[in-house]
């Protein structure tokens, strides 16, 4: 293992600064769930790996100690274990169907130790710049987190970006927000239900986080309004006594047409959850599977107990109240905006990821840069199930692609030209998913894994 970079002599230069050559080593940015599995699978394919992690531990967003972690005290998984664990490292079978976020961190820490990944990670080091260099290689400039110390640049054969996309809060620019005298926080700053006690709380956002916080507010706050843009399908965590996603996949397995599946699931939801209009919620303006799934058994229960008042979207903020789109006004002390996150890749030039003006990267399989065969992004996905299995196979494909490129450049070139470079942007979803930033990276796990399977098989075929 070669992780000590201090002894490498700098023979390369860039802008008057030395560049330390790391040979065939691959650089991984971030040691969250995507970074860890990237290290493991690259190592399994025989690559040396240097991973840079800005925080002091593994786990990324799942590590609640990290200042950028979005998890709150009560956060539990919304996909059951089989959909959440890495496919080659199961979670303990005596854990519950839907583990707590601290268990996910324990799981990731155990994964890192089991496969001995920590020696490859440079903790407390953040990546400042990733720039293309000669020979399709990459110069990665790093420094200590917080900007202390000198910057150093290393040259790598390839870069796998796994910096996550749920850490940079996105807050809509509401009219009059600055004049509002109450407290406004983004859900990423919400940690503990005690913050809600005795307050009148407005929760904005119908995503999974918004629903979770609304449920907690129902139990802790004096009043809770829950504002959503539209009506949603609220999937319960259990259907017919089984985790809902396991039931869904038992249906998926039958390979029924999408329309029939949508009808079947909507029927099931109508029977088990009921008509949302009866609870004063709006009727979904879309079919099921057309938005990111919301899994929450308790929201409707709390609405039924009067703890949560469902209200429409926010129109504008006033000094002491918030006006809603239906003209009514509510007077909260605390507004929690569960309005999601934006992906950010400050260390990369936008054209490297072929990003649009809005900042949406356009990548093959949401992972491979078409312009740079040695640049890949891991984990930039939103899925209708857990994300770890998808990232696992993504990084297997990345590692095998890089391996093929090194072993047989000619065939690798043909493979790239044939099945990556020209492949148009696709959505790996069966249903027609809403075209909002929330759904930029939305995939259906079966459609997406089928596409990855094709690529991995193609790589094996090109190798033979």
């Amino acid at each position, binding site marked *: 293992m070669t992780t000590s970079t201090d002894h490498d002599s700098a023979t390369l230069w860039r802008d008057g600064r030395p560049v330390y050559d790391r040979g065939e080593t691959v650089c991984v940015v971030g040691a969250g769930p995507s970074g860890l599995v990237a290290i493991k699978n690259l190592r*399994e394919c025989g690559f040396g790996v240097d991973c840079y992690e800005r925080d002091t531990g593994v786990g990324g967003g799942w590590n609640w100690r990290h200042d950028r972690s979005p998890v709150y005290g009560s956060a539990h998984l919304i996909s059951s*274990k*089989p*959909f959440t664990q890495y*496919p*080659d*490292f*199961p979670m*303990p*079978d*005596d854990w519950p169907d839907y583990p707590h976020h601290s268990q996910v961190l324990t799981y990731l820490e155990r994964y890192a*130790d*089991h*496969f*001995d990944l920590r020696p490859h990670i440079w903790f407390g080091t953040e990546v400042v710049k990733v720039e293309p260099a000669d020979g399709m290689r990459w110069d990665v400039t790093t420094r200590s987190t917080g900007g202390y110390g000198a910057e150093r640049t290393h040259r790598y054969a390839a870069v796998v970006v796994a910096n996550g996309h749920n850490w940079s809060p996105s807050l809509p620019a509401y009219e009059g927000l600055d004049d509002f005298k109450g407290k406004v926080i983004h859900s990423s700053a919400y940690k503990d239900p005690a913050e809600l006690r005795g307050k009148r709380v407005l929760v904005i956002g119908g995503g999974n986080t918004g629903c979770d916080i609304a449920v907690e507010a129902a139990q802790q706050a004096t009043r809770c309004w829950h504002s959503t843009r539209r009506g949603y399908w609220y999937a319960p965590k259990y259907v017919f006594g089984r985790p809902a*996603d*396991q*039931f869904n*996949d*038992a249906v*998926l*397995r039958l390979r029924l047409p999408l329309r029939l599946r949508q009808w079947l699931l909507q029927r099931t939801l109508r029977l088990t959850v009921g008509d949302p209009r009866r609870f004063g919620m709006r009727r979904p303006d879309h079919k099921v599977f057309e938005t990111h799934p919301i899994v929450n058994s308790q929201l409707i229960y709390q609405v039924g107990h009067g703890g949560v008042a469902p209200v429409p979207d926010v129109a504008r903020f006033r000094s002491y109240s918030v006006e809603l789109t239906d003209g009514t006004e509510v007077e909260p002390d605390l507004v929690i905006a569960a309005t999601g996150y934006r992906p950010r890749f400050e260390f990369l030039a936008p054209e490297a990821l072929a990003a649009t003006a809005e900042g949406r990267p356009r990548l093959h399989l949401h992972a491979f840069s078409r312009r740079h065969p040695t640049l890949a992004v891991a984990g930039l996905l939103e899925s209708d*199930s857990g994300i770890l299995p998808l990232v696992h*196979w993504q990084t*297997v494909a990345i590692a095998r692609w890089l391996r093929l490129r090194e072993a047989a450049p000619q065939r690798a070139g043909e493979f790239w030209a044939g099945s990556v470079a020209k492949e148009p942007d696709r959505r790996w979803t069966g249903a027609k998913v809403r075209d909002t930033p929330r759904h930029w990276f939305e995939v259906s796990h*079966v459609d997406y*894994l*089928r596409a*990855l*399977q094709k690529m*991995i*098989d193609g790589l*094996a075929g090109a190798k033979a």
Partner: protein
Amino acid sequence: MRLIRFEDWAKPIAPVRREVRSATPELDEGKPPVLFVPGFGHGAWAFAEFWLEHAAGRGFPAHAVSPRGHGGSGDTPRATLRAYTHDVVQAAASLPRQAVLVGHGAGALVVERALARYPARAAVLAAPVLGGWATLGVALRRNPAGTLPAIFGGRLRLSRRQLFSRATPEAVARGYVERLGRASARAQWQLLLHRAPEPAVGDPPVLVVGSPDDRVVPASALTRAARRYGGAPLLFPGMGHDLMLDARWREPIDAILDWLEKGGS
């Protein structure tokens, strides 16, 4: 490599109390943990007899798991090979470091399947019973009375003569045979009729060890098994099927550990 795994997703195996026996070296030398998987009827006890302590004595953290319905583990009705595989993968993933899997007898068949769900550091198939009609033929010829009921879902009774060489004292061998339990009827049938295992993940080196005088696994089956992994079997003539309990138990375990120390290739 199969990415779409509806069975794993939609029908996860129910958990059950699991017996894992361990012997760990006094000083951690950084050697990989070894997880032993017993064959049908046997439990973790079969390895706890000699091999665990011996491996620990040579610096390897050694563990043995009893698949459900075996040894001290709980049981679930109609356990399948998939359920046994689940138990092995769970035990392997619970170890602090990437493990070596050692399967004996039909446990080797389970290990082959576990390799498709867990990237083991290396794997050893000891006297592997990989199933098929030839296995049944041999068993029927050697031990018709013990084998025939198994075809109808009864218990597969292995005899002392099948499992042990003459070097093992008769009373000792009888004691071991009395401790044998049974695999589920389903798993017994699956021994004959099962789909080929999915390819191993992580491309681990695989060693096959056995005895040409094994009365359960013919030498030709050992050669065939080893050839699948691009090698030749390591043979210990004169030993019975139960390599870990036979009078000369020390030789095969030493050979396995030597192979691991050389980097397992």
